[in-house]
C-alpha cells in the first residue's frame, strides 16, 4: 500500500476503514436515476410493442446524428478515463487537460443535439405531434439536462484543481464525477438503440 492509499483510507470521507461515503452516495443517486430512465424506457418499449412499432414517426429521427453523438460520448469517456489515469500518476496538469477535453466533448454533444432539435422543430415534429415525439423529447431532453449538469460539474472540478488540492482529494472527487459521466453515457447507449435505431429498422 502506497502513502497515497494510506492517506485515502484515513480521510474523513472514508467510512470505517475502507468504504467511501462519497462513492456510496453517488451509487445511491445513480440507482434512483436508473429507475427514472428505466421507467421511461419500459413504458416507451411496451407502447412500441403494443402499437407494432412507431411507423412513419420513428423513421424521421436523425439516427446518423445520433450515431455521431454516441461516438462523441464514447470519446469523452475515453478522456475521462485518461484523466483518472493522470490522477493516479499524480499528474495534475494531465488531469486538467483531459477534464477540459471531456467537458468540451460534452458541449459538442449538446451542440449536435441542439442542431437536431432545431431541425426536428423546423420539420414540424414537436412534443405534441405524436406519442413517439413526446417520448423522444422527454427522454432525450432529460438526458440532455443530465449531460449539461455533468459538463458544469466537470468544468467546476477542473477549476478547483490548484496547488492546494491533494492527490487523494483529486482522485476521489474525479472518481465520483467520472462515475456519473459513465452512467450518463450508459443511458445514452440504450436511448440511441431504442429511440434512434429500432424505429428505423426494416
Amino acid at each position, binding site marked *: 500500500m502506497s502513502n497515497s492509499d494510506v492517506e485515502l483510507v484515513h480521510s474523513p470521507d472514508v467510512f470505517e476503514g475502507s468504504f*467511501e461515503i462519497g462513492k456510496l452516495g453517488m451509487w445511491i443517486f445513480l440507482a434512483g436515476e436508473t429507475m427514472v430512465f428505466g*421507467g421511461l424506457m419500459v413504458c416507451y418499449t411496451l*407502447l412500441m410493442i403494443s402499437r407494432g412499432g412507431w411507423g412513419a414517426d420513428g423513421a424521421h429521427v436523425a439516427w446518423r446524428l445520433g450515431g455521431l453523438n454516441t461516438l462523441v460520448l*464514447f470519446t469523452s*469517456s475515453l478522456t475521462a478515463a485518461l484523466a483518472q489515469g493522470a490522477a*493516479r500518476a499524480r499528474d495534475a496538469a494531465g488531469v486538467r487537460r483531459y477534464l477540459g477535453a471531456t467537458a468540451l466533448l460534452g458541449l459538442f454533444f449538446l451542440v449536435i443535439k441542439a442542431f437536431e432539435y432545431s431541425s426536428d422543430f423546423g420539420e414540424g415534429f414537436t412534443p405534441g405531434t405524436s406519442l413517439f415525439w413526446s417520448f423522444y423529447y422527454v427522454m432525450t431532453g432529460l438526458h440532455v439536462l443530465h449531460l449539461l449538469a455533468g459538463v458544469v460539474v466537470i468544468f467546476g472540478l477542473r477549476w478547483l484543481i490548484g496547488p492546494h488540492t491533494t492527490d487523494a482529494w483529486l482522485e476521489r472527487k474525479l472518481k465520483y464525477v467520472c462515475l456519473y459521466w459513465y452512467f450518463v453515457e450508459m443511458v445514452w447507449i440504450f436511448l440511441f*438503440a431504442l429511440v434512434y435505431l429500432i424505429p428505423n*429498422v426494416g
Partner: protein
Amino acid sequence: MSISMEQTDSAATDPLKTWGLLVALLLFGVLAVALGLPRGLALPVIFAAAIAEACIIGRSYMRLRSEDVLIYLLVLFPAVLVVALAFVLVPDIVEH
C-alpha cells in the same frame, strides 16, 4: 474491497482498447440499420451491441468487476424494480 485493489484493477484496464471495442460495437448497431437488415436479424444485433457496450462501460470504466457486494445490490435493486414495472404494465399497455 480495499482501495489499493481498486487501483490495481483500474490500472489493468486500457482505456484506448475499451474505446476501440465500444466504437466497433457501435458500428455493428449502426450497420444493422444502414444495411437495411431484416427486422428479425437487426433487432437482436442492436440489442446485443447495446448490452455489450453497457457491460464494457460498467466493467472497465465503472470498475464494477471489483466492487463491493453493497454496490452490486445498489445496481441490482433498481434493475429488478424496472423489470417488475415492465411485468405489471404489460396487462394495461400491451394486452389492451
